Structures are given as structure tokens and as C-alpha cells.
């Protein structure tokens, strides 16, 4: 196990892509131990031959088709009509708009780029500081993987062998709790800094903007209701969502052209390939960790430390937050989940609840330096100095950690909806 972890860490640090670093580390162990090399190849290829994972390219395709139909502008216009009249209204629009955007795209990096592109110039023009504007856009994007659909949820549900429908539903309330925490912080900052109010509230405008955005708003509803019915598989629902997005873009909004399709198919397939190559490469990696009894070692260490599931969750939260500062979200999830599942089962911790805790942790990690991918994206797209942005992002990291503590300590926030709908 030492050889595996050290070689993996070294290959990562020298700048090899995560998938190749995992493969390199697994190959090193296999060669060292004299295990046939074909075992690694077999594990990698069979690692992606799974029907549930097909939901990933299809959800990504659905989100990309919606984005290319220009729905983010419609969603933001709708939320602006909804919350724009309060103090700091434009900042609140970015948060509330992201609740809806997360329900469509499923990728926090995509959401962050879309929000920063629209809001950083607008907020700066309206008198907000550029650092605040970019930090807000980065913070809002943490909602992406929590509010369904979410690619990370598809992978977690597959790893933990739990219902993806339950996990999607479980993300709704925690996502809203995180959004509420950010709304309250923004309201406080807006009062202190005397941020301007946006346009006055008008029912007529709200109704017009709602009608304009309704087809896009309906997509997450379609997905969640599809799961609630319990007949369709996740992959089938993702396929229907992709077809729905195509029809809305081509024939209802008429902002999408057939000629755009090849480019969208190409980029979403490559995005999927990058994610799934990591999933595939993790298969021999986890197998080696398994035969080296890593789950048992962690379980023994934790059992020796405590017998309380709450202390375990607290320890895991701290460990995940620290790891999230240094490691890539997907890599942490893919490596840790197979190791942690036996531990969680031993302590009777609900895997759906833990899935939400894990995702909230990891998305907060995207907002903390040095590996804060959302900070980099917001800084680049918004053209704002990283140091300015980091200072303004700190209060958002603090309230998101507070929201994480609430979500961890009140399991019903995640588990009530999936249970109530059964």
C-alpha cells in the first residue's frame, strides 16, 4: 500500500493527469508484486463497462444542450425579477439563479464560468467590487453538485450501490440550506456596504420571465419526477432529459441549430471520457487498496478512536475539508468512497446522508486555496486578481462550513424528502 500511495502522490505532484497517475501507481505495484499485468487492463476496461455510468454522458449532454440554447440568461432574468428588488438584489440574483442553473448543468465548473461571465461585469458596473463579484460567483457554483442532476452523485451512487433517485432527492434540501446561508450572508454584506437595489418588483415582469424560463425550469422537475415514479433507470431518465433539452432548444426556444450538435456531442463526450478514465483507472487502484486491507486498517483506527457515529462524521468532515484543499474533488471521491463504505456500514451511517455530506465537503474544497478550482475559474473568467477574490471568498467558505455542520447533524434534511416520497 505504501508503494501505491507514494508513487501515486509523486506522479500527481510532477503534473501527470490523475488517471495516468493512478494507472502508473497500480502498474508499479503489480510489477513489484509479480502479479500479471493483464489484471490491471481487465480491471480498467470492466471498470467502465457499466450501464448506470451511461447516465453521465447523457446528463452532460442534456446540460450542454440547455446551456447552448441560452437558458442561463433566461434563468437569471427570471430570478432578477424575483429577488432583484431587495438590497444587493443583483448579488442575490446570482445565488438564486444558480439554484436553477444547478438543476440543469450538474457541473460546478460550467456553472461558475457561466455565472462569472454574466455577473462579474454586471455587478462591477453596478458598483460592487470586482473581488466580491467573482467570489460570489465562485461560491454560488458550489450548489452545482448538490442540487440534482449531478455527475458526482451518479458516480457516488454507483460506487456506494445506492439508489441514484434517492440521492438526487436527498440533495434538494441541503442545496437550499447552502443557498440560504449564502443569501443571508449576502444580505448582511449588502446592508453593511450599502449595495444598491436593482429593479423594482412587478408581478407582470415576474410572470413574463417565468414563462420565458419555464421550459428550462421544467427539466429538473422531469428528472426528479422520473425517479419518483420508480420505473425508469437513471440512464433512461438521462436519455429522456437529453432528448427533452434537444427538443426545447431546437423547436421551442429555437436558439439551437442542428449544425451545433456535432460540436456539443464532441465536447460532452470528451468531458465524459476524462471523468470516466479516472473512474476506470481507479478500479485497479481500489482493488490493490482492497487486497492490502486499507478499509480494515482505517476501520480499526477509527474504532479504536471512538464508537460514536457523530464523532466519526466530524472526523471525516475535518479530514475531507483538509483533503479538499489539496486534492481534486473527483480523485478524492473515487479513491476514498470504496475505502470508507465498510467503515460507514460498521457505524450504521446512512450512505445517502453521507453522500450529501461528502459532496458538500468536496465542493467547499473547490472554493479553498491552493486547489480551489472555482477560485481559478472565477478569477480567469471575471478577470479579477486571485488574492482579492480569495479574501472576499472567505466569509462564504465560513457560512458554507456552517451549513455543512447543520447538514451533518440533522440527517433528516437530506433523508426526509426521499423517505417521504416513497
Amino acid at each position, binding site marked *: 500500500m505504501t508503494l501505491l500511495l507514494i508513487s501515486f502522490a509523486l*506522479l*500527481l*505532484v*510532477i*503534473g*501527470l*493527469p*490523475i488517471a*495516468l497517475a493512478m494507472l*502508473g501507481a497500480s*502498474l508499479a505495484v503489480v510489477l513489484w508484486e509479480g502479479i*500479471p*499485468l*493483464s489484471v*490491471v*487492463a*481487465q480491471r*480498467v*476496461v470492466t471498470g*467502465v*463497462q457499466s*450501464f448506470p*455510468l*451511461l447516465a453521465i*454522458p*447523457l446528463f452532460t*449532454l442534456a446540460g450542454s444542450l440547455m446551456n447552448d440554447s441560452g437558458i442561463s440568461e433566461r434563468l437569471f432574468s427570471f430570478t432578477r425579477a424575483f429577488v432583484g428588488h431587495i438590497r444587493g438584489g443583483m448579488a442575490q440574483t446570482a445565488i438564486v439563479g444558480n439554484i436553477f442553473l444547478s438543476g440543469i448543468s450538474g457541473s460546478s465548473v460550467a456553472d461558475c464560468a457561466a455565472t462569472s461571465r454574466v455577473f462579474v461585469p454586471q455587478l462591477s458596473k453596478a458598483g460592487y467590487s470586482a473581488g466580491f463579484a467573482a467570489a460570489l460567483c465562485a461560491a454560488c457554483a458550489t450548489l452545482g453538485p448538490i442540487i440534482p442532476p449531478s455527475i458526482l452523485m451518479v458516480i457516488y451512487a454507483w460506487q456506494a450501490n445506492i439508489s441514484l433517485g434517492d440521492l438526487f432527492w436527498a440533495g434538494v434540501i441541503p442545496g437550499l440550506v447552502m443557498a440560504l446561508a449564502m443569501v443571508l450572508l449576502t444580505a448582511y454584506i449588502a446592508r453593511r456596504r450599502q449595495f444598491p437595489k436593482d429593479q423594482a418588483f412587478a408581478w407582470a415582469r415576474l410572470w413574463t420571465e417565468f414563462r420565458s424560463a419555464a421550459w428550462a425550469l421544467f427539466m429538473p422537475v422531469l428528472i426528479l419526477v422520473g425517479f419518483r415514479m420508480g420505473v*425508469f433507470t437513471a440512464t*433512461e431518465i*438521462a*436519455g*429522456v432529459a437529453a432528448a427533452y433539452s434537444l427538443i426545447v432548444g431546437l423547436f421551442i426556444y429555437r436558439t439551437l441549430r442542428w449544425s451545433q*450538435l*456535432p460540436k456539443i*456531442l*464532441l*465536447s*460532452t*463526450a*470528451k468531458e*465524459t*471520457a*476524462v471523468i470516466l*478514465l*479516472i473512474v*476506470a483507472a481507479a478500479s485497479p487502484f481500489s482493488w490493490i487498496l482492497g487486497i492490502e486491507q486499507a478499509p480494515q486498517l482505517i476501520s480499526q483506527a477509527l474504532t479504536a478512536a471512538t464508537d460514536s457515529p457523530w464523532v466519526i462524521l466530524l472526523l471525516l468532515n475535518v479530514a475531507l475539508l483538509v483533503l479538499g484543499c489539496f486534492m*481534486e474533488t*473527483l*480523485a478524492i471521491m473515487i479513491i476514498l468512497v470504496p475505502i470508507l463504505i465498510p467503515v460507514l456500514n460498521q457505524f450504521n451511517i446512512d450512505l445517502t446522508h453521507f453522500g450529501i455530506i461528502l459532496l458538500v465537503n468536496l465542493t467547499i474544497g473547490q472554493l479553498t486555496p491552493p*486547489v480551489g*478550482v472555482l477560485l*481559478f*475559474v472565477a*478569477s*480567469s*473568467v471575471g*478577470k*479579477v*486578481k*486571485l488574492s482579492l477574490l480569495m479574501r472576499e471568498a472567505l466569509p462564504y467558505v465560513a457560512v458554507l462550513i456552517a451549513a455543512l455542520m447543520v447538514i451533518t447533524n440533522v440527517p433528516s434534511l437530506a433523508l426526509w424528502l426521499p423517505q417521504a416520497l416513497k
Partner: protein
Amino acid sequence: MGKLKSILGRIDDGLGAAEDLFIIVSHGAVASLVLLAVVMRYVFNDPLTWGEELVVGLFTWMIFIGAAGAIRSHMHIRIDVMGPVLANPKMNWLNTLTVIIGIVVVLTMMTACYEYVLQELVVESPMLGVSKAWFAMAMPTGLALMLIHVIRAWIDHGSAPVFRGETETLVATEGGVR
């Protein structure tokens, strides 16, 4: 050397174009087959028994060819914190070492795949009744393409941008202020 570089460039571009076409067609086919399966199962009550295996096979090919294509588009994910360090011209030796190690990993993995494909030659898939080597071949093919793209990028642009990740690419194209 110049001629060799130009020939390699042309081969790589040709392969890249073929790869893109394959990715587009396979992704379109995967999405269409999933939808067709939904219609057949829920509307006509006649599920496609062979459909799932074909879709998973296509998907496997799409992943490994897509992973090769992602090298050309600089979409692979690596630890972003190393971005500024690796971008420093003084660290060029480290970038070169990384590319060489990357090539060694890919070549070793191709050897592993060769052994695996030989094993799968005699195994038949349960629904389609074809050799499972057809599925197993996806990975060595993708790795071979990846190798060509890596060598071309290394020769053309030096070692630094070969494994550049999505965020670094975004930062480079958007020209963010550090």
C-alpha cells in the same frame, strides 16, 4: 527533422479528425440507442435484449477514444496547484520528466492490454455473441492514439503544455489576472 515533424503533424491531424468523427457518431448512437430502448420497453413493451450490450460496448470505445481526443484538447484533469510551478520556464526539466514518465505508463499499459486482449479473444459476449476482444481492444487503441498525440504535442510545443489541464487551459485562454 523538419520533414519528419511535418509528416507526424499530418498523421496526427488526420487521426485527430477521424477520432473526433468517431466520438461524435458513437455519442450520438449511444444517446439514440438509449432513447430507442426506452421507447421499445415502455411504449411497445418489447425491450431490446441486445441493446444494452451494444450501448455499453460503444460507450467503452467512446471513453477510450475520447480520452485520447482529450489530450489534444487539453481537457485532462491534473492537480491545479502545480500549474504555476510547471509554467515556470526554469522547471522545464520537470515537464520533460513528466512527459517521459507519462509515455512509459502508456506503453506499459499497452503491454498489459495486449495480454488482456489475447485472453478475451476466446470469450464470447452473452447477448451479441461476438468475441469480447472487440470491447477489450478499445483501451489499447485509445492509448496508442494518446501516445501519438503526446509525442506530436511534445515535438511541436515542448513538454510544458502536453498534459495541461482544463482549468489551466481556461486560465490561459481567458487570460486571468493572477
